[in-house]
């Protein structure tokens, strides 16, 4: 069931009705059953490997807590984490031709595996108690709004909410609906429209040079942002209406003034996960290796993020490029600080210049992420540079081909989104909608409803030719 399908909205309505009418103590069970039903739409047999992973995490966490000896605790923690990660790598990266069945690679395997690994390690480090209630833990791993593409919520944050659900208020319902409408808008109006041209270019890069490749270079980050953050908005909005506040995944990533800041604003639930469970442990282990330890830990962290998407040379190159960017950023931090303290006049320029440079570094890395092969990525980077005269004729050709319609719609919608976001940030009153003036409150309701209606209309119109979310496949 796709998040942009009418079937999903219907399923969500039923789920909201069930969750808001049953007794509070039955909330984990109802979420688990609803999530199993959601999963069954895909393939009910996939619940077998998923259930196995939940039982492994449940049992090992209880064992870790009960074990007296440090050796036993370590064995249980690292044994179960190794098993979970090995299963993920084996199942996900098995070539399609050698897979006995598709259901052996469950939907959202990368997301629930990372959730369960963090749960086991948090119990091992004493950050939280082992969960006694198997149903609650299973509902955490399977929670259907988060299973398709995250956000990767931490168990302690989820479990406390599912046990003490607040009654569904009008404010929560409006917040959830608004978020869901925003997600539909980002996906159907921005990402899918920009995607028409970009998918054609990335599908056959060797057939293009000049403006179309330049377009692909500059616009793919915007398409991916609208697509993935739209998917996240739908997940967060849906979860909110079921009583669960999810972590945020994006925080204005293109406003970052350096590459490390970008990674603190992009796919945040994954990057904070790798910081806690990969970067920090490795940095602690290599803390006396000075710069080599720093670069090694950054490399391992960026590679985890890159190869989490799949084992492929394109993702490897993406990881390598970002390892280099983040390492240079970390190694020059002190020097830059000293320079800007001595030359304060440069600081204002560093903000603008830093954002522009960071966007280019991000777009450069994304070429490797999106291209079908590394050689395709190099083709784009080599052939997108054309003289201004040729660029003008390329643009004219693009306009004549009719492909500009969708690009203009997508980019106009993106500009509108950014302007609205700027207004929202500058008007703190909207942060507390319930306490704001009636005209403002109802304006927000009206705009949200309109976006939802437009989203629904687009869902019906494009129902048969739906573009999948770029992050659904992980």
């Amino acid at each position, binding site marked *: 069931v796709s998040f942009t399908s009418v079937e999903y909205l219907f399923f969500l309505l039923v789920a909201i009705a069930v969750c808001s009418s049953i007794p509070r103590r039955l909330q984990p069970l109802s979420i688990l059953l609803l999530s199993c039903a959601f999963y069954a739409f895909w393939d009910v047999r996939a619940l077998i490997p998923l259930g196995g992973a939940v039982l492994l995490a449940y049992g090992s966490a209880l064992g870790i807590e009960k074990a007296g000896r440090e050796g036993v605790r370590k064995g249980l923690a690292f044994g179960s984490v190794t098993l979970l990660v090995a299963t993920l790598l084996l199942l996900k990266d098995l070539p399609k031709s050698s897979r006995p069945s598709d259901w052996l690679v469950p939907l959202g395997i990368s997301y629930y595996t990372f959730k369960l690994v963090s749960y086991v390690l948090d119990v091992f*480090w*004493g950050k939280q108690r082992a969960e006694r209630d198997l149903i609650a833990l299973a509902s955490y791993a399977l929670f259907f709004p988060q299973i398709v593409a995250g956000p990767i919520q931490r168990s302690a944050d989820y479990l406390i909410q599912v046990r003490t659900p607040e009654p569904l208020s009008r404010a929560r319902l409006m917040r959830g609906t608004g978020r869901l409408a925003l997600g539909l808008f980002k996906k159907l109006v921005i990402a899918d429209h920009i995607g028409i041209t970009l998918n054609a270019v990335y599908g056959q890069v060797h057939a293009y040079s000049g403006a179309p490749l330049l377009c692909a270079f500059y616009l793919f980050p915007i398409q991916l942002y609208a697509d993935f953050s739209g998917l996240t908005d739908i997940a967060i909005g849906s979860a909110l209406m079921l009583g669960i506040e999810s972590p945020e995944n994006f925080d204005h990533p293109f406003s970052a003034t350096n590459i*490390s800041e970008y990674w603190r604003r992009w796919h945040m639930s994954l990057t904070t996960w790798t910081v*806690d469970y990969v*970067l920090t*442990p490795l*940095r*602690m282990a290599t803390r006396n290796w000075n710069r080599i330890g720093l670069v090694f830990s950054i490399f391992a962290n960026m590679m985890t993020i890159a190869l989490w998407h799949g084992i492929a040379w394109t993702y490897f190159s993406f990881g390598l490029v970002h390892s280099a960017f983040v390492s240079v950023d*970390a190694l020059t931090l002190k020097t830059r*600080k000293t320079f800007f303290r001595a030359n304060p006049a440069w600081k204002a320029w560093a903000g603008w210049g830093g954002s522009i440079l960071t966007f280019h570094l991000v777009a450069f890395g994304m070429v490797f992420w999106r291209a079908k092969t590394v050689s395709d990525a190099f083709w784009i980077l080599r052939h997108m540079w054309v003289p201004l005269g040729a660029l003008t004729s390329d643009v004219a050709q693009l306009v004549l081909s009719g492909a500009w319609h969708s690009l203009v719609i997508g980019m106009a919608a993106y500009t509108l989104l950014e302007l609205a976001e700027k207004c929202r940030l500058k008007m703190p009153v909207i942060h507390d909608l319930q306490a704001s003036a009636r005209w403002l409150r109802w304006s927000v309701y009206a705009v949200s409803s309109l976006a939802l209606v437009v989203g629904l209309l687009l869902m019906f119109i494009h129902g048969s030719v739906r573009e999948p979310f770029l992050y659904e496949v992980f």
Partner: protein
Amino acid sequence: MTTQTNFEQVQTELTGIFREVFDDPQLALRDDMTAADVEGWDSLSQITLIVSIERSFHIKLTLGEIQRLNNVRALIDLIHKKVQSR
């Protein structure tokens, strides 16, 4: 630093370490302070902070101990405990 190091001594020395690591001579520690309250306190600078603490107080901190810390007060308590049992 003597074996009878008290909380105030730990806090004073820790303030000096924080000021040096985060390059802020005015920085003053509060018990409820977290990474969100200090500019530049991220995952990488946190390890620089840990290394400076270990060298300065002649103690060893483990990953589990670091992961359980939730504010500056918890860090001071941990350092104090480690110094006392040295």
